[in-house]
């Protein structure tokens, strides 16, 4: 309970600080760099969630513990949410900075591919009716998808750099200004806290649903 309140306060502080405390970063037009306090943590959480989901799937495939699958599913759903947010905030930033919502620069390409992987994961979850089979298939798919990620990391920058050299400006690190860094790290912490909180809620819901289903069968 306390954690929830603290997290809410912390998030509010970060939001205010990102506008009032930290200065706008140089090299970016006007106030646009402020969105990065939110965009980068979202993208980071989206990727982290995918990693967690993959590892939980691997645990499920090895040990067949249903709780591992609950974690995999919840992490994937939340990861998808943050991925959509990251895509939207990234597009807004792109429009403000480079004048177009979408340029297919390395970052944008990577986030879209992650979005596609999440989409495919949910597609396979909804296409299989038998619960055990669903978990195994979804788990196998998330592992396969994860395996292709190193290729993407290696391949995408080489391709998009040569295609669109002017768009390789990478807004990943918004300056080393100490105030900015503080707010950025604070935001990262806040988003991680938010993610963990939502994850635990989701797993609890799934667990209760699972128990309820079992109960119905026993009746």
């Amino acid at each position: 309970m306390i954690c929830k309140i603290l997290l809410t306060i912390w998030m509010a502080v970060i939001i205010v600080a990102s506008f009032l405390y930290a200065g706008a970063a140089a090299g970016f037009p006007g106030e646009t760099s402020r969105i990065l306090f939110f965009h980068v943590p979202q993208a980071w959480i989206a990727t982290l969630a995918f990693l967690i989901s993959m590892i939980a799937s691997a645990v499920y495939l090895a040990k067949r513990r249903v709780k591992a699958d609950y974690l995999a599913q919840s992490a994937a759903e939340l990861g998808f949410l943050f991925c959509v947010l990251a895509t939207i905030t990234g597009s807004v930033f792109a429009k403000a900075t480079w004048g177009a919502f979408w340029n297919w620069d390395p970052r944008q390409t990577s986030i879209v591919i992650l979005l596609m992987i999440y989409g495919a994961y949910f597609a396979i979850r909804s296409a299989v009716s038998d619960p055990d089979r669903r978990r195994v298939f979804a788990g196998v798919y998330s592992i396969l998808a994860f395996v292709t990620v190193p290729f993407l990391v290696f391949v995408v920058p080489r391709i998009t750099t040569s295609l669109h050299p002017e768009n390789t400006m990478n807004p990943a690190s918004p300056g080393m200004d100490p105030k900015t860094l503080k707010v950025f790290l604070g935001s990262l912490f806040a988003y991680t806290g938010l993610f963990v909180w939502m994850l635990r809620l989701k797993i609890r819901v799934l667990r209760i649903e699972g128990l309820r289903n079992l109960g119905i069968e026993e009746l």
Partner: protein
Amino acid sequence: MHQTKNGRWGTQARSSTYLNEAVAIWLRDLRSEFRTRYALNAILMFAVTTLIAVSFSIGSFRIEEAERPFLFSVLLWIILTFSALSGLARSFVKEEEAGTIDVLKLSARPQAVFLGKLFFNLTLLGALELIIVPSFILLMSYQINSPGFFIAIIISGGLGLGAGTTIIAAMIARASTRGALFSALSLPLLLPLMITCIKGCERAAIGMNNADWPEVKVAVAYFIIMITMSLLLFPLIWEE
């Protein structure tokens, strides 16, 4: 039944390797395909139709010469990938529809099944590339300045396409919405391969004077990794 050395009864020993059994499955699939031609027809129909549409609407000269190496490469790989996606699931889906999956599960080891189906898919892809790639080059007047490299990319790309899709085909054969699901699941996995191959073909068309073939190495690495992961994960899918 026979009596083994220590006097116990034993069943007939397994006298073959995964490879032998995989080849048996591959040859059987080939024989069935030869007699019915379902998968090959589906793939070729798609490819030829798309190729004709592309050639008719774009033609050899509408695109400026500087852009041709890249754009033609993109078109070629779009045709190859989507044709593959229209037909590569057939080997598993046909078994599922005919009801022969159970008897295959009872007789064959999972890894042998995977390898056999992989070989079959690679054969289909080989036939597709053999027919479509030269046709494309002719119809579009695609100028290739480094033919050796180009052929290497086509071959390694085809290998990668097969490796990335065979296990997905096994998964969707048991699901409800097969066709669309196969494409939706395969494309995210195939993207790195496609991007690499498009780039490689572009460079082959422009021509390179060095012997550096990074794209081929990436495609082959993709092939090896996907096969390894699939061999590990396929038994889990097969036994569900």
